[in-house]
């Protein structure tokens, strides 16, 4: 197996997938902790569905789908937030609203363009073969942006996540921080669909955070452990998919499930004692 791993590392597409995947996973896990604790984690799923439509739009217009997706999905994320704040639509319902709109629009666009082609299919379930050098650089840039934002606004994010009202009383600009959080999520979702696809990208946000929450007591440790779970699931998933000839996106998600199972069991055992 070791020889196969060495062999896999020779391929440029595996190298690109590993680099982009690790950065994406790290950023997704960081954001995931805040989103999961604020009961807003499905926003990743909703935005991924919206990005299905924007990718289809890009393919129809023969424009690079990422370039169409980043601004439009970003806009959708702010819209979800506004629907939740202003129109008194519940957070989950606001996500559902835009999510179904995204899928419906995507299917319509695909049909106008003459049905589902291979390109659109690879965006649905991810295709590490399609990760280009430009994607890798964009991923690194956005992930560093996420890590930087989490570092600089860590205390504000913590305060809002724990007690939003107290954060407001403390003079923290809650609306601004919320907007930043959903916008960063939208960018990372768009970049993540190359690796695991629109159907599975939200798992990179939800699973590492939920696994870390099973075992950790402090907030900082939760973020760190979620990052570790996320990165290791990508590394193990990419290699396992190469060795066993399995689809890479799905394998990454399955490894995440194994981590969750392990974390859940260790919590269960420690509480029983």
């Amino acid at each position, binding site marked *: 197996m070791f020889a196969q791993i060495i062999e896999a590392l020779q391929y440029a597409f595996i190298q690109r997938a590993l680099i982009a995947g690790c950065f994406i996973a790290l950023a997704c896990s960081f954001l995931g902790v805040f989103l999961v604790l604020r009961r807003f984690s499905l926003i990743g799923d909703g935005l991924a569905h919206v990005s299905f439509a924007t990718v289809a739009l890009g393919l129809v217009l023969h424009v690079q789908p990422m370039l169409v997706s980043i601004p439009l999905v970003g806009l959708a994320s702010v819209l979800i937030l506004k629907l939740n704040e202003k129109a008194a639509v519940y957070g989950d319902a606001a996500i559902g609203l835009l999510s179904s709109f995204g899928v419906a629009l995507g299917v319509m666009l695909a049909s106008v363009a003459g049905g589902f082609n291979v390109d659109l299919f690879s965006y649905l379930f991810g295709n590490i073969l399609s990760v280009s050098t430009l994607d890798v650089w964009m991923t690194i840039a956005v992930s560093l942006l996420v890590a930087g934002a989490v570092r600089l606004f860590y205390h504000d994010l913590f305060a809002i996540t724990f007690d939003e009202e107290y954060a407001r*009383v403390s003079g923290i600009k809650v609306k601004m921080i919320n907007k930043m959080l959903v916008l960063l999520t939208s960018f990372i979702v768009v970049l993540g669909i190359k690796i695991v696809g629109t159907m599975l990208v939200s798992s990179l946000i939800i699973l590492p955070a939920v696994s870390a929450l099973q075992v950790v007591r402090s907030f900082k440790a939760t973020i760190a452990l979620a990052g570790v779970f996320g990165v290791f699931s990508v590394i193990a998933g990419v290699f396992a998919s190469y060795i066993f000839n399995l689809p890479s996106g799905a394998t990454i998600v399955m490894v995440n499930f194994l981590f969750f199972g392990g974390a859940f069991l260790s919590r269960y055992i420690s509480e029983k004692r």
Partner: protein
Amino acid sequence: MKIIEVKNLSVKYRGIDALSNVTLGIDSGDYIGIVGPNGSGKTTFIRALLGLVPFGGEIYFQGKSFSDFFAGKHVGYLPQRMSFLDQSFPATAEEIVLSGVYCCKRFPKRLEKEDYAAAEKVMELLGITPLKERSIGRLSGGQQQRILLARALVHEPELLILDEPTVALDPQSSGAFYATVQRLNKEKGTTVLLVSHDIGSVGNYASKMLYLDRGLIFYGTFEEFCKSPKMTDYFGVGQHLICHRH
């Protein structure tokens, strides 16, 4: 000096007047017990002060209008309901207490040695030092309340707003709690606004009483309250009972 001035404060809640035409001034160093029946607007009053609900009228803090006022820097706040508290939230008691100093930090916020020392001090004062590393969700209601009180006190605010602070406390902790607040009021001159439904125990600590019932019914010292014929008309025998307990 007046720390807070309220002019014609009105708050509507779902189209109904929760509070109307409240005008009053609060002196720096006062200890005010805010009392009144259920649904009388006590919590609404302090939420308006903190800018958490939209209101009509004017509120001035230290002579400045609300929008200029950087509330958290001067205010420590202990909210009423702890229902927001997620029992599986991954934070240690110390992390929660330290979040009380964020108000006074500039971007990018960093915790310094002094902040940890301040947290240590206030946790010692409230007898929760042994809980420092414990996860907030695993603590009892009374312990959680003391941690949130420590969060409100850690930056030594000039004004302390407490909404039904002793509901989850046993009589012993409750006594220690009132003693701590009283000491802050006496020694540091902290202005205290304490919401309570228990008019009797408020009388033991507060220097003034603010009685609300969807508007201002009475504001002044307990002595003034007991001697006021207007209050006799309003409360009847109730006034006597309150004064007797006091």
